[in-house]
């Protein structure tokens, strides 16, 4: 099981946390990953940037945007799920 934490702190929230989370959810459904991934929210990760912060396992990624969410999921999250 891999945990994806989407930051819903002030900065990330206004930069589209909810949209990013929606995209992740959609992809998790499409790729049938719901029993392999847990999606949760958290307050500020102390990594505020020009985009949304996302933690996958132990690693924090900054600057994910609603537009780049799908590609980020496929490039960074999917390989980690497959490796787990």
């Amino acid at each position, binding site marked *: 099981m891999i945990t994806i934490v989407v930051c819903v702190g002030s900065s990330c*929230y206004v930069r589209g946390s*909810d949209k990013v989370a929606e995209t992740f959810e959609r992809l998790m459904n499409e790729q049938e990953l719901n029993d392999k991934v847990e999606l949760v*929210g958290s307050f500020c990760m102390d990594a505020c940037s020009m985009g949304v912060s996302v933690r996958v396992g132990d690693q924090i990624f900054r600057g994910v945007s609603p537009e780049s969410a799908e590609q980020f999921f496929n490039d960074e999250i999917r390989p980690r799920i497959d490796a787990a």
Partner: protein
Amino acid sequence: MRQVVEYASRTLSKAGEELCGDTVDIGSTPTSFIAVLSDGLGSGVKANILSTLTAQIASTMFKEGAHVEDVIETLASTLPECQVRKLAYATFAMIKVVRGREAYVVEYDSPPLIVVRGNKLLPIEARERTINGRKVREAEFDLQVGDYMVIVSDGYEHAGVGKLYRLGWGWQNIAVSVERWAGTNCDAYELIHALTTTCLKLYDGKPGDDASAIAMRVRPAVAATILTGPPANKEDDARAVTKLMEGRGLKAICGGTTAQMAARVLGRELKVEWVRPSQRHGEGPRKQGTPPVARLEGVDLVTEGILTLGKTAELLEKAESTRDLPHDSDAATQLARILLSADDIHLIVGMALNPNQVADVIRGQPMRHMYIRQIVRDLKRRQKRVTEEYI
């Protein structure tokens, strides 16, 4: 224990009149409460002007501790004289309560105050005097938690005249109704609602006279303590959290980083109550602009900071009481509900700048303070006792 007077009022205009000839003026400070109901001679514009002036003059003067004679003297020399009746005149009833306990009542040609204690009408001993040829009653007594008080204008006494009641609802019958409602443990809002509804029903929906009432209830003050923002110095973190946990009443934390700090200090888990977008059914479209709340054992409400405070400030600008708030459960509405239901509010404001918040760094002052100032101003305007502490 601090006692406060909770109040609600409602004026009904005579059917067909746009302006009400009765005026209610309620002004209170954190330590004293003053309510005046004035009934202007006649109805319509003239009555409205007379009662408005009377209520405001009486309220201002009694607040400053003026004597009845002076107040009536001032009214007589200030009010415009009616051309027809050669009389400048509006009746009034005034009640002043200091520290929620010591009551002082003045009735100038108006129906007496109704006081109900333990579901029974409490006889109030009043001194009667004649000033300027008018009958004035004065009384002093002590209030207890659970006491209900009602001031009505004579439009209430006349409700239903010639119909259900030959002589109108009448003071005695109104008092009996108040006794009965007090037995249901209602609050001041429910009491005014019951009074107004009954009065309108007796008048068949068309009041034959201006009819107004003020409903009051004495209750213990409700407290709330809010912690927002981490302290300027990290060494003060634990102290700030302890202050919150030892604070009175409901407890709230506003600020993601503050919440994480509190969780660390308390050694408890902070759980962000974030619902996956697909599972947010039932709530309709999610409220724009307020992020989720979190759970932390021992704290009643945990929210994110700046966005929630901004939205809360916006809500407090308009809502006079919890009743005016939307029936939402988003963070800002919940926070506004806590603030509006409290009488004594203590704010512990952390002075740390958020290095991630460019505006903080530029202004050299946390952005959150702007909203806090606005919130404090709006709460004070509602006569709440607000104390602030910067750490």
